[in-house]
């Protein structure tokens, strides 16, 4: 399973970022999310949504094998094992592993699905 994004439908509202942050940290803070929206304005006028594709590059590069797959099949950083070397951040081809305020370990998508629920434009979906 993985998260898919149809960027052509995105209106850039960031509800997905907030839902991600709140579901994980109980915080209203778009800087604590595991996906990203890149606006391209004024030209050509579109949004680009970046999500984790579960490619596994992060797990491959991790020097302490701290990124096992969870029960949904998502590569998920184990905070007890992670040494915060940030190698996974640099290795991620989608740039969706994040250094977030107030936390040493990087943060990535665990396929909780809250972003999908909150998106009003049906941009996001979880599928094989």
């Amino acid at each position: 399973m993985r998260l898919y994004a149809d960027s052509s439908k995105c209106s850039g509202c960031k509800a997905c970022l907030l839902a991600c942050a709140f579901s994980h940290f109980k915080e209203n803070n778009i800087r604590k999310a595991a996906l990203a929206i890149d606006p391209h304005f004024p030209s050509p006028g579109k949004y680009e949504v970046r999500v984790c594709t579960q490619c596994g590059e992060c797990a491959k590069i991790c020097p302490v094998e701290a990124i096992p797959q969870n029960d949904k099949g998502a590569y998920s950083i184990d905070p007890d094992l992670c040494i915060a070397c940030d190698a996974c951040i640099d290795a991620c081809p989608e740039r969706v592993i994040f250094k977030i305020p107030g936390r040493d370990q990087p943060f990535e998508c665990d396929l909780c699905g809250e972003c999908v629920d909150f998106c009003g434009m049906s941009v996001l979906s979880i599928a094989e």
Partner: protein
Amino acid sequence: MNGYAGTILRVNLTTGEIKKEPYDPQVARDFVGGRGLGIHTLWTEVPRGTDPLSPANKLIASTGPLSGLLVPGAGKMDWACKSPLTGGYAGASVGGHLTAELKYAGYDAIIFEGASAKPVYLFIEDDRVELRDASGLWGKGSITTEEMLKKRLGEEFQVATIGPGGENLVKYACITHDYGRQAGRGGVGAVMGWKKLKAVAVRGTQTIPVAQPDRFWELSHAMYRACKEASGLEAWQRYGTTIVTSWCDEVGALPTRNFQQGSFEQGPGLYGQVMRERIVITDKGCFGCPSPCGKYSYTKKHGVFVEGPEYETIALCGSNCALGDIEDVAYANYLCDELGIDTISAGNAIAFAMDCYERGILTARETGGLELRFGNAEATFTLIERIARREGLGDLLAEGVKVAAQRIGKGSADYAVQVKGMEQSGYETHNATAMLLAYMTADVGAHHNRAWAITYDLQVGRDRVAPDKVARVIELQHIRPLFDAMGACRLQWVELSIDVTSYAPMMAAITGIERSWEDLLKISERIWNLTRMYWVREVDGFGREWDYPPPRFYKEPATGGPTKGQLTTFESVQKLLDMYYEQRSWSKDGIPTPQKLAELGLDRIVG
């Protein structure tokens, strides 16, 4: 303070001093935030009789407790000042992402005081707040300025800026954000320009605290789910505000040729369906919005990108100037945005000039050779530029139609479609008495946003003059501004029929203060009455006459369309006002009574 960042930034542009002050919890409790904080600050801090374009006037950018939170449409910010257009209160709401970013940076509001000697912009990144040189940005358009600042600072910065219109003190200059969202009305951009403040750029990384996280999460889920399941969602997402263009044209509410009638023979070319197919390239939402009304477009004919046009711009720059090509309206929209002037007042002012020209009140000598006939798109574009740069006739129209008519004379005041000095927005009101009353009594002048009552007119009979219509206007005047105080958009309630009372438990979960929806409406009534008292305080002789509608609607019947031959008599106007003042417990001259002020707890403030 849950739901609030807890800090207000006070920026003195004369001295360069920047202070961080705690948000007074009593003010937050009594006035909520947003426009509530705006009018409270104007009342308590800006001395009576202040010239709007002087260092004593203040410009207040204020978020609300919902702003930046996981609540549908929580992307609204209010900009308030003493209005250079009307001499009374100006409060302009803008969507986008600025309001959220300011709270993430740790601030609920910014109060700008004084005036800078040279152009500056305000840089905010969390605790770091600096006034920076903006001489390289001065003279640049709004879209260009935002692009330059984002290239310099980073895409995550949210920017609000003025264009040449604000720099040149056009009385209806706006403040632009996110490449096409505006705090549009009342000349907030002129006050920013007078202060030599070109822009604000902000980025924040902090969390906004809520009192009851679990309850908040549950309510948030329920509200978004209700929006996603709403029957009106799909159509609204596709067309946004332009969904009403065809409806207005059909029922006779689409202002046409300077509000002479409510239906436009070329109207179908401007409908939302046509626009979507011809020019829209993406939906563009404000913060946290599941139903984005923003439609971002590209016009091949003119080779520019523009957010919109949305309904108001289509009505005022389109049908009201008799422009029938949506691409021409999009280009007029782009010019107004880049130059930084309000499309509503600009479209109204140009239509006024066209009306005067066709009647021989203005001649080619005054128009600088412009053939200012209705439907002349090129002349419209040229006049927008001249207004923003204050050239020729544009310099006069930059003062607004009320002042322009006073200076032109020759009976032109009958064609100035304004209330309290503010140009009327996009609903033709020859025969729609609730909507007419809404325009007459709106707290900024002839603006629709305080009470969109036109649907009620259609529902109960448009020419009826009865207490229920007045009651509906007052009810709306409390609900809609409450959203502006809470810092969220009203359109999920208006267009998706989200239960408006569900905002009360949401407010309680966020702030920790249990209040019913009725309690919150009482606060809104407090804000409304204080705003009224501000007009009373600031405008000599303020009273009943200031609530009179534009003469056109009682003197001259509609010239065509479904309302052809109809008007609202002056007797009906007086009756509407009598009922309105009575229901509000105001005097016969429209002044809040001491009893009403005491009931609302305003006696302590008003004195």
